[in-house]
C-alpha cells in the first residue's frame, strides 16, 4: 500500500521529467543549430582577449572582490534553511490550531525569537553594512 502510494506520487513527477527533457532538448538544440548555421570568421589574436570596452586588458583577468559577498553567501544558507523549516510548520498550522494551539504557536514564537537574536547579532556585527 505504501509502495503503491509512493509510486502514484512519483507518477506526478513524470510530466516534470518530460518538461525537463523538452527544455534541455530546446536549449541544446539551439546551441547546436547555431554551431551548424553560424558564420565562420577568421581568428586574429585580438579576438581572443577579454573585452574591456575596446582597450587592451589591464592586469589579470580575474578581478579581486570584496569578502562581503562570501559572507552574504553564508548568511543566505542559514536563512534559507530557516525559511525551509517554516514551510512545513506553515502548512500544518491551521489544522493544529484546533488540536494543540499552544504547541504550534509557542514553537513558532520561540523559533522566531532565536532567529531574531541571530539576525540582531549579524546586524550588530555590521555583516550587512555595505556602505563602508
Amino acid at each position, binding site marked *: 500500500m505504501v509502495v503503491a502510494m509512493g509510486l502514484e506520487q512519483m507518477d506526478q513527477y*513524470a*510530466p516534470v521529467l518530460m518538461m525537463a527533457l523538452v527544455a534541455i532538448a530546446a*536549449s541544446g538544440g539551439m546551441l547546436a543549430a547555431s554551431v551548424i548555421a553560424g*558564420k565562420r570568421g577568421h581568428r586574429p589574436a585580438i579576438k581572443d582577449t577579454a573585452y574591456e570596452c575596446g582597450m587592451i586588458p589591464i592586469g589579470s583577468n580575474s*578581478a579581486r572582490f570584496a569578502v562581503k559577498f562570501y559572507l*552574504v553567501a553564508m548568511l543566505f544558507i542559514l536563512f534559507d534553511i530557516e525559511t525551509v523549516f517554516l514551510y512545513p510548520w506553515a502548512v*500544518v498550522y491551521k489544522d493544529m490550531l484546533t488540536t494543540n494551539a499552544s504547541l504550534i504557536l509557542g514553537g513558532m514564537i520561540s523559533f522566531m525569537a532565536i532567529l531574531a537574536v541571530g539576525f540582531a547579532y549579524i546586524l550588530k556585527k555590521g555583516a550587512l553594512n555595505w556602505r563602508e
Partner: protein
Amino acid sequence: MESYLSIPHLLAVAGDEKIFGWVTPFVWYSAIKVLVAVGLMLTMVAYTVWVERRVSAFIQDRIGPNRVGIFGLLQPLADGVKSFLKEDFVPGHVRKVFFWIAPGIMLLPGLLSIAVIPFGSKLGEQDMVIANLNVGLLYTFGITSLSVYGIVLAGYASNSKYPFLGGIRASAQMISYEISMGLSVIPILLIVGDLNLGNIVAYQGGSLWGWFIFKAPLSFVIFAAAAFAETNRLPFDMPEAENELVAGYNVEYSSIKFALFFMGEYASMIAVSAMMATLFFGGWTLPFFGLDQPATTWLGGLLHIAIFLAKTCAWIFLMVWIRWMWPRFRFDQLMDLGWRRFIPLALANIVITAVVLWLKA
C-alpha cells in the same frame, strides 16, 4: 492504430487503457500539455521582447521596430534567425565547459517552474496543469533558485572583469531576495494550509476580497519587489547594469548563446508573472459570473485559460513599464532593502498572520 491517435478518441479516453505499449492517456496528455506549454512559453518570450522594445519606444517617444511585418510583428523571428547565423565565437581565455553550460541552463528554470502552475481549470476531462504536485510552491522555489547558476557560471566562465563583477553581484542579489521571496509567501500557506497551487487558487475563489493581494497585502509587496530582483529587472538590474558593467555577465558571449541569456531572463519574467497571478490574483478564477468554479464546458475551460493568460500578460506589461520608468538602485541600497527591510518585515508578517489566525480560531 490511427483511430487511437484521432483527437475525438483521445478526448473520450479517460480510464487507464493503454494507447500503445506504455503510453497511457496520462502520458499522452502530459506530452501534449508539455509541448504546448513550452511552445507557448517560447513564443511569449519572443513577443515579450517585442513588447518591451515597442513599449520602451513609445515611452521614450521613439517608433521602435516596425519594419518587419505589420507593426514589426515578425521582428522576433528575424532576430531569432539572425542570432543563429551570427558567428558562434568562443574566446580563447574562457573556461570552455562552463562557457557552454551557462547559456544552456539559462532557459531551464523559467520553463520548468511553470510545470506546477494551474493555467486553467478543466478542458474536457483534463486538469489544466502539467504536474499537479502536492509540494507545488516548494517546487517552484526550488526551481527558481537554480536560475542563479546560469548567471554565476557565465560570470565565472568568461574569465574577464565585467562578467565576473556581474556574476558575483547577481549571486549576492538573487540569493538575498530569494530569502524574502520565500518568507513572503508563508502567510499564504498559513491561511490556506496547503502547498498545492491548485488549492491555493481554489481558496481565492468566491469574492474579489478572497484574492491574496487583499488578504495578505504585505506579502504581495515583498513578493513583487523580490520578483523584480530575482528576474534581474529594473529597478534591480545590478547584474547587467549596462552603463557601469557594459552588460555584465554576458559580455563575452555571441550569437545564440547571447540570445539564450535574454530568453532565459524573459522566460523567468513570464514564469514569475504567472506565479504572481496564481498566488495573489486568483489564478484562472474571476469572482464574477461563476467563473471561480472549475469549467464544465469547453468554452468555459478556454475562458479560464484566457483569464489566466490575461492576468499574466498584465503583469508582464507592468514589469516592462516599470523598467522604463524607474532608475536603478545602488548596490548597497539593494542589499539594505533586501536584508534589513524585507526580511524583518516578512518575519513580522508571518508572526502577525499566525497570531491573527490563532485569535480567530
